[in-house]
């Protein structure tokens, strides 16, 4: 889990803090609205931002009075949460290697697009277009065309 671009000690700490957070926030978790792995990913991601970059994570407040609600139910609301993750997982496996690599470096290792470009010695524009292409395919796997 903690290939999150940290040294082993810090990764260990982030792991522990993530699980403590998961424990503390368990009541906020709603199985109908999200899958467990996705929810844990967001908690680990926020811990990484907090610990490694010492930055805050600006977040949406779903109770914000300014929030403009969805007009129609999103495709996700009609899909079983567990099948969403299954579909995305299958579709990640089908991505070409170069696209899957940038997605993994971005989401799991937490590298910025510039850092990925430096790591792979590939122009930034190419990294961005690989990300965009892979995201289009992944969204298609969710029946998501807009």
């Amino acid at each position, binding site marked *: 889990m903690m290939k999150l671009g940290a040294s082993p000690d810090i990764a260990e700490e982030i792991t522990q803090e993530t699980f403590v957070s998961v424990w503390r926030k368990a009541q906020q978790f709603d199985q109908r609205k999200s899958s467990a792995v996705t929810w844990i990913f967001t908690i680990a991601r926020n811990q990484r931002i907090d610990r490694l970059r010492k930055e805050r994570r600006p977040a949406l407040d779903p109770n914000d009075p300014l929030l*403009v609600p969805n007009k129609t139910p999103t495709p996700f609301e009609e899909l079983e949460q567990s099948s969403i993750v299954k579909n995305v997982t299958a579709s990640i496996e089908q991505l070409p290697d170069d696209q899957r690599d940038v997605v993994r470096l971005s989401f799991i290792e937490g590298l910025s697009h510039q850092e990925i470009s430096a790591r792979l010695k590939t122009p930034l524009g190419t990294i961005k277009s690989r990300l965009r292409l892979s995201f289009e395919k992944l969204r298609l796997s*969710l029946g998501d065309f*807009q």
Partner: protein
Amino acid sequence: MTILHHPGDELVLGYAAGSLAESWSIAIAAHLTYCPICRHKVEAAEHVGGSLLGGLEEEALAPSALDLVLSQIKGVEQEKPEQWQASIEESSPSKQESILPSALQSYIGNDIDSLPWQRLGNDVSQYLIKTNDHEAKARILRIKAGRPVPSHGHRGRELTLVLSGSFEDEFSKFRAGDLEDVAEETVHKPIAAAGDDCICLAVTDAPLRFKELIPRILQPVLNI
């Protein structure tokens, strides 16, 4: 409200992955308040993160085991009150009156008029938002109704999110919730629409390049 100008997928993905620096992330989080389409994209991207995480776990722990652990934790914690709910309710009455999405309120409070505005000439004021971000700077801009921001170019990227009022530049018209993404080397002269002042969030990763002399002289002093 129909949002016409959205962040590109690459910004949405960076935000969801957690790799986008703090100041840009403020603009994305604030835009999400107005935009169900981009909220939905962030959700899809977070499922990508979740799926990859689930894949990493698979050797040691099956995805179903995570659900199991989670439901056990839920059972144990059931008797504890939900403190986060209470805190949201406490703060919501003041939020009703603010034009600021909560992602911004957490940085600058909810009263835009009480901010220590710094004047940039006659028509524009700014308030620099304090972040821990070393890559980019976020500021609130207030442009007088019907008045322009001096024409400027960019040494880097500029994201502008309209919070109240609207502005127009050579490219399009931007209303509350719209996000303009201006690249390096683009020159534009935003003009606030007549009627109300235009209040926006502007994020930049390099100083602007003003055409006219006075803003150029003031620029280093004003940190814009």
